[in-house]
């Protein structure tokens, strides 16, 4: 018979970074201190589950629509950064290097994954560019075959709008030693030298 605890452990084990063993440890920590840990977590989960929305402007996840970034008047509104996922948006926000707006595509074109153009959130990007104001579109997509193919595809679709399209650079990471880099990264770094 599956108890409530087993059910909870099973749900945790499905999360990224968790397996059955780590899920048991996490659940044990929670049930040991239900008032201090479990109820606040449950309340937070409930609140987010009820309030989180997909921003109709950029595709970000937030409790507001438009999201906090799109609604922020201090953002550079002529600069839109296109990312694959909300996780990538969060990574760029952590870096605090981009002060413009975002657009979340929701994936990349992938023959293997079965992701086609109709599965990507491009339909709402073109009207954003058409409304004017956007001076540059930064394609911050992953340095994979799928990511690069998607970047070329988005650039083609955006070209008629006349907006300047740029791509994030590829090359030597911060703190990276050349002798441990793979050939592909080294080649890309040399080709993108300035």
């Amino acid at each position, binding site marked *: 018979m599956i108890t409530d605890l087993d059910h909870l452990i099973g749900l945790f084990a499905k999360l*990224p*970074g968790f397996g059955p063993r780590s899920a048991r440890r996490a659940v044990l920590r929670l049930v040991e201190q239900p008032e201090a840990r479990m109820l606040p977590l449950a309340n937070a989960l409930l609140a987010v589950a009820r309030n989180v929305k997909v921003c109709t402007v950029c595709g970000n996840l937030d409790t507001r629509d438009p999201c906090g970034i799109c609604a922020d008047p201090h953002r550079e509104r002529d600069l839109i950064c296109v990312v694959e996922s909300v996780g990538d948006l969060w990574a760029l926000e952590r870096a605090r290097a981009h002060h413009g707006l975002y657009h979340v595509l929701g994936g990349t*074109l992938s*023959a*293997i*994954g079965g992701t*086609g153009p109709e599965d990507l959130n491009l339909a709402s990007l073109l009207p954003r560019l058409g409304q004017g104001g956007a001076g540059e579109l930064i394609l911050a997509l992953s*340095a*994979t*075959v799928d990511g*690069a*193919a998607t970047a*070329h*595809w988005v650039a*083609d679709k955006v070209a008629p709008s006349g907006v300047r399209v740029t791509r994030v650079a*590829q090359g030597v990471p911060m703190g990276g030693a050349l002798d441990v880099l*793979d*050939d*592909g*990264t080294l*080649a*890309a770094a040399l*080709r993108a030298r300035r």
Partner: protein
Amino acid sequence: MEWAAPGIVLAAAPYGEGDALCAVLSEESGLYRGLVRGGGSRARAATWQPGNIVQLRWTARLPEQLGSFTGELVHAPVAFAMQDRVALAVLASACATAAGALPEREPQPAIFRGLLRVLAGLATGPEVLTDLVRWELDLLRELGFGLDLSRCAVTGVTGGLAYVSPRTGRAVSAEGAGLWRERLLPLPGFLYGNTPPDAAGWRQGLALAGHFLARDVFGARHQALPAARQRLAEIVAGLPEDDSEGH
């Protein structure tokens, strides 16, 4: 069971949190699929990008099992194709076509060497399309659907071939085509004569090979041509007529 050889990564699909299911092509073993532990992780995903040449080792307890791969990157042609939309589309198309068309675990030395030539030509710009079209025709021949471009199917002459019958795959001369020329597939000059390849020739070549790949190889399995192959055709359709260098 195990083998070790250089191979070309054709496809990699994420499996679980950090693993990947990969399809590779090697000269002796042909198309093989296997699990790559950590192949989808940040540290190793770069190695298992389509088009990369990897020193492979495949192991399994029994030959009929899926097995698993380990590998070390030998060369990364994809790094040279990232910024070039035509080269990237060629790479993606060739890998997807090979992964979808070839039978598993049958030696394919000619196809392997042809694909290596295509990958080596990625840095040459749109000229690589000539190699790709020839490789696709070689692929058709290896799969038993080769075209007969030796003589005209109507008149028997060996010169002046200008078309291919979409039904039989046999060449037809301009004279022999007669009123049927509208129904025939144009034979690009670079496949038959010494005409230098151009954008129109590449379009014709892709249409020619694509027709037979779609009908005889993928159509026989009730599948469409790979999306990457269709995307390549769209990109080449947009090349300027006189562009044999531009992108």
